[in-house]
């Protein structure tokens, strides 16, 4: 392999691959070729100075055995894997929505659970919980977000 993969066992006995961000897409493409056809989950964990992305893959041919791939990004960007697994589409949108990770090459990267126009990324550790945001709908039927309580329902 042209890149380096560190392997370790998780606390619960999972197999975990650690990979550099630069080689991430190559590894994922290779894993897909090795039969990991089910991308179960994409998670991001905010460690303040960096964001760790966790991918849980499964192989349908061998009893859906679990493999975790971990990578770290310091500038909140990572390559999108939507070209490899369709399910990454909504997962990556969710992580963009909640954690502010920008997935390069995603076909439709916009918020999924929160309305467009929401300020901040709620699952980041520095998100300000003391400020309320109010959502209303304009005449066009689009969501409108503001900090003004008079705008709420």
């Amino acid at each position, binding site marked *: 392999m042209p890149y380096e993969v560190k392997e370790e066992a*998780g*606390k*619960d006995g*999972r197999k975990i691959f650690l990979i550099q961000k630069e080689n991430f897409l190559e590894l994922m493409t290779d894993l897909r070729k090795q039969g990991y*056809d*089910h*991308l*179960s*989950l994409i*998670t991001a*964990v*905010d460690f303040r100075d960096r964001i760790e992305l*966790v991918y*849980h893959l499964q192989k*349908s041919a061998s*009893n*859906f055995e*679990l493999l*975790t791939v971990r990578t770290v990004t310091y500038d909140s960007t990572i390559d999108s894997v939507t070209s490899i*697994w*369709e*399910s990454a*589409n*909504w*997962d990556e949108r*969710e992580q963009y929505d*909640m954690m502010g990770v920008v997935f390069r090459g995603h076909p439709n990267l916009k918020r*999924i*659970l*929160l*309305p467009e126009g929401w300020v901040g990324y*709620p*699952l980041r550790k520095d*998100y300000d919980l003391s400020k309320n945001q109010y959502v209303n709908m304009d005449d066009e*039927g689009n969501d409108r977000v503001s900090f003004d309580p008079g705008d709420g329902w």
Partner: protein
Amino acid sequence: MEGQLNSRYVELNMGPQHPSTHGVLRLKLLLDGETVKNVEPVIGYLHRNAEKICELDYYCDSLIYFDRMDYVAAMNMEVGYLEAAEKLLAIEPPERVKWIRVIMAELNRLASHLVWAGAFGLDLGMITPFFYFFEEREKILNLFTEICGSRQETNYMSIGGVYQDFNDKIIFKIKQFLKQFPKKMEGAYSLFIKNDIFLSRTKGIGILEPEVALSYGVTGPMLRASGVPYDVRKDAPYLVYDKLNFDIPISKGKDVLARCIVRFEEMRQSVKILNQALDKIPDGPYFNPKAKKSLMIRLRGEGDVYARTESPKGEFGVHLVGDGTVKPYRLHVRSPAFKNLSVLPFLSRDVLIADMVAISGSIDLVFGEVDR
């Protein structure tokens, strides 16, 4: 199509309050006559960000937010969270607790499938089966009331144990319920399967090939209806599922009818599991003394774990990260209904609106879980 004036296509908004969208799902439809050209699901109307709330709470407090995720299968959600939390906090529940949890989870699986069946009948314009299914579900909820003190959002289990022990009276009552249940269920099932209108509305509709299903991350009865025998209870057994004898129903039909048949067969298997578990349930303590009430908020966890369980909707996964304090550092939930919903635009291309309603009904959506 966007930005052009095209009289051929009509944009229609379905939901967020339309009865057949099972909650607050909004579908932006692009129609050519009555044929659906494109669907864009808009979700998030029930979003509470349970993941963030859990980060602000103690490990033991997070449980109630799980009850409210898939609110028709609260027990399965609790099992899912506790699988992860107990791994992280290194607290092993006693043997009896594992059996009790299996019994409760399977009872709730029955209840959840019954709700689905009733709602699915309503989607297709059949009101009668709804009452039969909900009558049975009500009996299960009455059992829950007796065991846990509440009907739906039970908050029954806790870290390292359960809130109250089973007694002989409860076991007798569950057995009595199981005795009459199969006959009632089969009767209501025949309203579906022997009905020509039902068959013509479901057969060959919404075909989902196994490769597509896997690529979209579809799990649960939907995936099994496409012929992939993936069930976490068999493939990565948790609790005591490896000691129980049951089958994983699959179907080669791949369509809406197949999903219906698979779910009913799953109910029969759940009854089988329950009967075995009620006979085999061992004696012993019903909580781990390491996690008794006064110590509960002092539990600390470090590292990260991922636990998957089989909820009625599919693979329910919890990714839990602890940083050595009494609160979780990060918690992420893999919501099966969320992933199953993402395949709806693919399935509803070039079908009639009425068929799209049948397809969305067959996914078994619960919005507490999709939006979290």
